[in-house]
């Protein structure tokens, strides 16, 4: 598999389509080689972000996008949506259940990106054999 593939999914800000996001992310994560438990974790984390976007979007007429960036070492998933006056979608809820789940399942999470074209970005690394002298 080459080093930088991109996949994008654009969905309406409606609760009924979060299941579509879950299926797509499962497909991507398993295809690129994550094991079944990790696929489940990534799916759950993505679903939390989707739900949050839908909750804060305020209008079901809006759409959001999920970007998958696939490289040899990691999968980065970014979300974009035109949500007015909101930069941090998990603001006031950083110790909530949703954020706790995302933090536990992803390796890196960028919650409040400044001046970026996405509103949240998170990364899962492929496991690599440690060379840290262990």
């Amino acid at each position, binding site marked *: 598999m080459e080093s930088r593939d991109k996949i994008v999914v654009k969905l309406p800000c409606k609760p009924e389509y979060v299941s579509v996001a*879950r299926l797509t992310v499962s497909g991507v994560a398993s295809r690129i080689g994550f094991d079944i438990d990790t696929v489940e974790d990534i799916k759950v984390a993505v679903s939390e972000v989707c739900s949050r976007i839908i909750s804060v979007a305020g209008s079901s007429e809006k759409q959001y996008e999920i970007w998958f960036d696939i490289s040899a070492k990691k999968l980065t998933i970014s979300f974009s949506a035109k949500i007015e006056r909101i930069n941090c979608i998990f603001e006031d809820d950083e110790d909530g259940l949703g954020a706790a789940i995302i933090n536990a399942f992803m390796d890196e999470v960028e919650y409040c990106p400044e001046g970026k074209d996405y509103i949240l970005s998170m990364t899962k690394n492929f496991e690599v054999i440690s060379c840290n002298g262990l």
Partner: protein
Amino acid sequence: MSSELIMTSVDSDQEAKVVVSGEIDIYTARQFKEKLYQFVDNSTKDIVIDCSDLDYIDSTGLGIFVGALKKARLTDRNISLENIRDNIRKLFNITGLDKLFIIR
């Protein structure tokens, strides 16, 4: 494939039991919340929730479990969760909710 949620419940002399199957997410949550809260309100016994066929739950769903527990506690009752699958059990551990519920 489809993320439907089915909740069935029995409130007999012996037990107050809820069986949830399918997926509890932002789409199915509202309906689940209504049904579960109503069940907790109408029952007078400790409640058992059987999760054998619960495939998926998100933070919205976990929040509803917590809400139901708070309701139950108002009348000194408890909620225990039965037959939770590993992927869902993991969520209870991560969020610390495993310390709130009786899990068996």
